[in-house]
């Protein structure tokens, strides 16, 4: 019985080690005034644990998934494997009430996809 448990534990460990993840926080970002008049800002954090995806696209949407104009230093983020990044998103004050989602979507290079690639997208919500 113990042997079976050991095999099960080893299998779980191997399974866990092979995983790769994409994370975006906070779930509910807060928008605060920026140093630019008429523009607000929010700060997001990302952690890339996907070795097969090194680029992530940032997007901002309203409740109907229509894109909202925004500014950020890099719309396509280059993120090394296991790297953390913190980035600011600037939004016009006129658009603050329209915003519902801030999302990051993985962008895989053609050569990194084996047969069926997995595109991961995580969206935080503005409440």
């Amino acid at each position, binding site marked *: 019985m113990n042997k079976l448990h050991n095999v099960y534990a080893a299998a779980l460990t191997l*399974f866990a080690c*092979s*995983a*790769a*993840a*994409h*994370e*975006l*926080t*906070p*779930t*509910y970002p807060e928008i605060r005034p920026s140093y630019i008049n008429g523009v607000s800002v929010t700060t997001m954090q990302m952690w890339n*644990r*996907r070795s*097969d995806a090194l680029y992530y696209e940032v997007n901002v949407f309203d409740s109907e998934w229509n894109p909202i104009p925004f500014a950020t230093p890099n719309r396509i983020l280059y993120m090394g494997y296991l790297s953390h990044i913190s980035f600011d998103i600037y939004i016009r004050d006129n658009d603050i009430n329209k915003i519902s*989602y801030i999302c990051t979507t993985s962008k*895989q290079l*053609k050569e990194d*996809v*084996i*047969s*069926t*690639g*997995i*595109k*991961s*997208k*995580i*969206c*935080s*919500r503005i409440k």
Partner: protein
Amino acid sequence: MFKQILTIGAISTMSTIALAAETPIVGNVSSKCSIFTDTPGVYGNPTPDELSTLPADGGVYPVIRYDVSIADYYTAKISWPNSFSTAPSLTDSVTWDGEVEVSNTSDAGMSGYEAAKTEYENHTEYELTVAGSTWFKITSEAVYGVDKSLPGGEYKANVVAECIAD
């Protein structure tokens, strides 16, 4: 001299005690969703006009794991492919089909996920109402034309896994 040594010893002991007493460990669990790409899928080619991730057809299911730290904060939306991201030039239409299913869970409370899922077009949505890990397997099938052979070459398609804050 002896008094001085005693005084220095006492001060050292006090400072050690003070240091030991001021070592707090602070933790905070906030809502978070992580998407894990556990198994990248592979298309099998059971017949000349078909590609499939079904193991019976020689394929491998793509498996995605969602981890949520707190219940009721996120919706999982998974979409099976309806186009190739890489393929040779195709002169006929491709008929796509697919299925998303819960393949494993870390909590017995997630047993109702499969019955409560919402399906539309090529999308499937699950309300992540229990904290923990959920594994989803995706079936994808592509059939080319009417009894036509798929041209030789490389075929790739993308599964889209979304985690949307409620």
